[in-house]
């Protein structure tokens, strides 16, 4: 197969219709970053471990480095930029800032995408459950404690103080 072979794809990214011709080997995050300028999704390992590239595809958080751009044809993709602009996680972002739940910020978009999925369940979670849920996202700076605090306090506020 020719790696440089191209295909046209049409998808929705952060609510905008996008049509592009892409090389078949390009993964989704390279597409988002290089073709669309959405640099909030980061690459940490490009083999599906670190979670820095997490994006939402058709409602589910996926590893953007393990999905080809052509596989996203017809999909609805939400990146940190879209998630942020929509206001869906404004409370979580506020807690992250207040609690200093990020240092270098490189893991943060992926961490927020994953945490948003937990928050969207709307169910109480213990710190251990939060830690387990976030365990596919590598953070080298914080030691996780502050991130767990920020997610926990957002969750508790959303569900009205239950689960304290």
């Amino acid at each position, binding site marked *: 197969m020719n*790696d*440089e072979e191209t295909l046209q794809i049409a998808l929705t990214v952060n609510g905008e219709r996008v049509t592009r011709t892409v*090389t078949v*080997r*390009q993964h989704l995050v390279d597409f988002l*970053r*290089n073709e669309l*300028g959405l*640099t*909030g*999704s*980061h*690459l*940490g*390992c*490009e*083999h*599906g*471990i*670190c979670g*820095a590239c997490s994006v939402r595809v058709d409602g589910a958080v996926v590893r953007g480095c393990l999905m080809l751009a052509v596989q996203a044809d017809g999909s609805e993709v939400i*990146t*940190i*930029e879209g998630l*942020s602009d929509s206001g869906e996680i404004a409370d979580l*972002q506020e807690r*992250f*800032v*207040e*609690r*200093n739940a*990020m*240092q*270098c*910020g*490189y*893991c*943060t*978009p992926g961490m*927020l995408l994953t945490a948003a999925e937990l928050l969207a369940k709307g169910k109480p979670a213990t*710190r*251990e459950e*939060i*830690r*387990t849920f*976030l*365990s*596919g*996202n*590598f*953070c*080298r*700076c*914080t*030691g*996780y*404690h*502050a*991130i*767990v605090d920020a997610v926990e306090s957002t969750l508790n506020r959303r569900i009205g103080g239950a689960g304290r």
Partner: protein
Amino acid sequence: MSDKTTLTPLDRPNSYVGRTLSRTSAKRAVAGRGHYTDDVILPRMVHSAFVRSPYAHARIGSIDVAAAKRAPGVVLAMTGAELKDMCAMSWHGVLACFEGMKAAHQYPMAVDRACWQGEPVVMVVADTRARAEDACELVAIEWEELPVVAEKTTALDPATPAIHPELGDNLAFRKTIERGDVDAAFRAADFVIEETFEFGRHTAVTLEPRALVAEYDRGTERLTITTSSQVPHMIMTVFARTLGLPEHNVRVIAPDVGGAFGMKIHSYGDELATTAAAIKLGRPVKFIADRLESFVTDIHAREHRITGKMAVSRTGEIQALEIDDLSAAGAYSQYPRTSVFEANQVLTITGGPYKHQNYRGRTTVVYLNKVPTSQYRAVGHPIGISVAEHLIDRAAELAGIDPVDIRRMNVMEDDSYPRLTSTGLKAQDMSHQACIEKLMKAMDYGALRAEQESLRRKGIWRGIGLATFIKGTAPGPHGFYGLGGAPIASQDACVIRLEPSGGIICAVGVTDQGQGVDTVMGQIAATALGVPPDQVRVIEGDTDATPYGGGTYASRATAIGGEATYQAARALRSEILRLAGALLQADPSTLDIVDGKVVDAANGTFRISLAEIGRIGHFQVAELPDDVQPVLSATRRFRLLEKPYIFTNGIHGAHVEVDVDTGFIRHLRHWVVEDCGRVVNPLLADEQVRGGCVQGLGGALYEHCVYDDTAQLQNGTLADYLVPMAAEMPDIAVDHVQTPTQETELGAKGVGESGTGAAPAVLMCAVNDALRPFGARVTRQPMTPEIILTALGKI
């Protein structure tokens, strides 16, 4: 804790020092609007990729790049020999302060011989990274494999070939420290404890890999490098000298840096090669290390085998300590900081908290055909602290006293400073006793011990660990780099100015990698000046815009850069009051600056705003008397005068549970009480400690660069090299004792590494405490289930 009786600006009610402020860049980071090196996209930009040595040691025969050059999108293919021709100097990683040290000269890419698996050999530049990688596959190299030196314990055997024949053997460095009468103390001791420890090689694994974009303007002969670095000025100097360019024509920008931890204070061959490509091509070239090449090119650290021996009296008094350390550098000594710092640190900090005065330390560093090692967060401390804390726990057991009591008995007393440590370093302003007592309360130590006892009866094996430490922070020019001859600044500087709007621009030589250095500098400047923090903008990470400084390494940003900022802001305050005095016809000493306004010092009455002084000073200068020339800015530099470091101290506590059937360790809870002097921003300081702990715990539990006997890395992916994730890590309680350093007016010491330094030690102590009823001991890190089960005799 301060002895100072006069009220300094730092203690005033409107001081921002000691207050938690959110980081200025945090809101941007959570919106995904951070700006990292890979986010830089420039017109006509091309991408480099590297053919790397597949062998740990091999001679390079012919190199055929013809097919690569013909591949789609390729604009350049360059061999190591061609790059050498562009270099004005080789890299020689020695420092004069390490007497007798030997190192081979190195070029940024291998020239006729590759000395480690991963060493760059050929660079290919193409219009996309993917195409550059495709073309790398087409490069044909004739390799002749050479004997590999993979094992440190036999590296100095006469039968082992020298990696670099010109050095005679594989010895990099050897040093001994001897104080007191060690042999007499051992002869007189009631107990002698001896143990050999192994520490696995590991690496930084910054989530953002190394990254660089270089652009060269042939018209102005300006080279601009954007790179994920802690030390932009050092990169400017080293790259300019290596490529034979005038330093003042080189600009280095460090934008947002996605993790660094000491790994990004070094110069790397692939980054220099990419810069050379930009010069050769006259167009921007980007290099982003992928994760696989990060594992075989980012500096490694911590490969040590060390024997420790402690002499102890029947009552538990330490009488002497002796260590003999053997560590493995890689194939070269990393330029310009060398690969022997870690060994030297182990030598000088092991047993550092304790007051005995009989000490002998020996260290030997050898070269292996592996990735070069060098400074990584808490250089040497995890090793030295683990050794001493393990030995003191064994001493407690033999003497029949509690681990906390033996530490209470042996630490240097809080009222005994200034003094020398057992290894002969000048120490002052430390607080071991206060830290221990604060930790005991935080842990509820007695209750934990009681619970441990009752759980043991139920077959639940929990352990409690303690680890006291000292940490060398903020090195001065008398220590290493300056005296050693390296182009690395140990001073740092701040240029601060008043703008026409009344805003303050504060440009600093220290840099931020997410710690909040910019926020902290802003807090210090605002406090020293008397303005709100949002009136101050801090600039860092750009050699064109900031004064020459060392950047951020060795926990120096707040201690050294913070003092420079404090002094510069105080000087600007004097300048503003001088101008205010001239305008108001008042004696400047009767005026003060509070909340961004000049007021009467006596009663706080408003006199003139900073904006008004800025406006007059810049635009309406005619309103000033002829003999008053506004300067409106100040520059100050700061360096340590005499001491090699500002030492910090503290103690960790850990509570673990060991599953004796599976060998798994559950880390239940972690505590730290440390003394970083004056805390500028409590939240940011605590988070430095927490993050540092987990980085140390990674090395203690999981992280290990595993090599086979041909020096091939066996686990160079994130799937195989394990790092700590959220589920395995505990909550970490952090507290401080604040003993300001007398070296500065600010009083801050370093805080970034005290978590990493002692966390491996406290974990090993806790695990051994859990295993004590089985008579089992673990002295290897990482403490994998296999190591635990082996210690228990189960496998």
